[in-house]
């Protein structure tokens, strides 16, 4: 059992556990923190897959920016366990069951895909994950979508202003 495998299983376990904790923890702040944990685990996976750039971006953008934003908002609304609205237990059960069914479906489906048998994800090598290559690709073939995302950000910006501005 190589270190990679150990790390893989450890990170996977961590990710799943923290994801579950995100759901179950009553206090929103805790959920946020658990979610950050998930992101760290995932970044770990990226590192294992030798996708450093994404690992970093994931940490910066998600764990760093987005989650902090969430945190601010929650703090600002000072939501805590008391104010936390709860769904009816049956609804929760239904949610869990249907989600479970969905999972089962997909998994059973994956088990039937023969062509995936024996395919491996290349670990710790292959350099497509490196900033250099990604940058080349991004500003070469993928420049158009890259530009177009600017429109996305513009609209998001305008939107945030329109919604957020007091009038």
């Amino acid at each position: 059992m190589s270190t990679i495998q150990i790390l893989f299983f450890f990170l996977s376990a961590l990710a799943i556990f923290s994801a579950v904790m995100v759901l179950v923890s009553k206090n929103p702040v805790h959920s946020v923190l658990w979610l950050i944990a998930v992101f760290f685990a995932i970044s770990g996976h990226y590192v294992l897959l030798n996708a450093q750039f994404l690992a970093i971006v994931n940490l910066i953008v998600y764990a760093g920016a987005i989650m902090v934003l969430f945190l601010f908002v929650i703090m600002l609304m000072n939501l805590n366990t008391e104010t936390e609205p709860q769904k009816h237990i049956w609804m929760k059960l239904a949610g869990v069951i249907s989600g479970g069914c969905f999972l089962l479906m997909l998994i059973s489906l994956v088990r039937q895909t023969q062509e995936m048998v024996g395919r491996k994800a290349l670990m710790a090598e292959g350099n497509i994950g490196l900033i250099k290559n990604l940058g080349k690709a991004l500003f070469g073939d993928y420049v158009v979508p890259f530009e177009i995302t600017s429109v996305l950000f513009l609209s998001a910006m305008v939107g945030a202003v329109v919604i957020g501005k007091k009038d």
Partner: protein
Amino acid sequence: MNAIIVSALLGVVMMFSGIISKNKSVHTVVAVVGLLLLIIANLLNSYGPYVININTHGLLSVEQFGLFSNTIAFTATLVYVLLSGKTIENTGVNVADYYALIFFVLCGVSILSSFNGLLMLFLGIEILSIPLYILTGADKRNLKSNEASLKYFLMGSFSTGILLMGITLIYGATGSFTLGQSKSIAGAGLVVQTSFLQIAGMLLLFVAMCFKVSAAPFHFWTPDVYDGAPGVFTSFMATIVKASGFIAFIRLFENNTSVLGPTWKILLSLVIVATLLVGNITAVFQQSVKRMLAYSSIAQAGFMLFALYSANDLAKEGILLYSAAYSLATIGIFAVLIKMKDYTFDGFNGLAKTQPVVALATTICLLSLAGIPLTAGFFAKYYMLASVVKAGGSIWLVIVAVLFAAVSVYYYFRVIQAMYFKNGEAETLEITNGFKTGLLVLAALIVLIGIFPTIVLNWFYF
């Protein structure tokens, strides 16, 4: 390519005009001019050589079908702005921003009409959706508007998640972000049979698209959002956006259903029947015209799905005609609706007496939606049915469809009854002569298309 760039730029221009001028009507004027520019640019793209050429590395493929759908969308937007510009101005303070967002949406529309590959599809859908979340919530003081935008946002991003999972699975199976090829299998030299991963991915993709075009059972956001959003923007969402959603849907699946095999038809017909059922039946009992129109838009979506069901040339022409007819009629009705003080059916009582012209135009729009001959709506439906019949087989589906069409007559005509046969004093906001003329022109256009649909199709298509 023209359309994408110009629309994006116009969005920016609108933002600036918002900074420069505080006079609201200026923005409208700018928007109208901009739209004209946009249309011209797009037409140049379709006919002339004047194209901004950018090497998109195969991520975009600009072809006639998409360009024509653009033209329809832009024209519809122009009509929409001309009719409802005043109302947009009165919706809130940031008029310029609204227009900017509208232009960004149009940018998304033009991406969806020319995407090639799932990446651009994804971006296009997002560019289309995010401004809409905001427009839905534009009426900030109004709790309904808040609720609508929250619902729309949550469900929208959920569907994005589904979409992405679908894309991912397809990528996993095929190693590429384009549909309809099974590279990996062939490469692996195994028996050529569609990978289950790919199938699952396409199903999820299908679900996400169904959500976007509000096909049952993924339609639930539609009534609430359309009802909650400010009337003007509902009109925009229900017409241009939905139409482009269908264009994307068709461009996505038209050539790739072979991968899915025959079960595809079963699924699709299930969805179609469900959509028709939910849309038509639920619309029957509505009390608010706005909400009725929301459900009717679901019902119309059911009809448009036929184009997907029978993916043949007739269907592609049909979807163009349908989106034109449907958009025009719906825009007309919404334009009238948002002039009403009371959105319920009773609000329309006796409109024919107080505003005969408006009532007449509305009637024609409603007839068009109901698919009565001599209106554009008839040929729209006609093409859909014809394409299915041509595709052969499932005539029963067509029969079901027409029965539901008969049901749709019920709720459309309730409005006509209210306007003409019921007594009452329908109260409206002030209605300018310009508005009336606009409506009349619209109605005339609908009737013209209703008599000579091929005009449109010849202009736009062949």
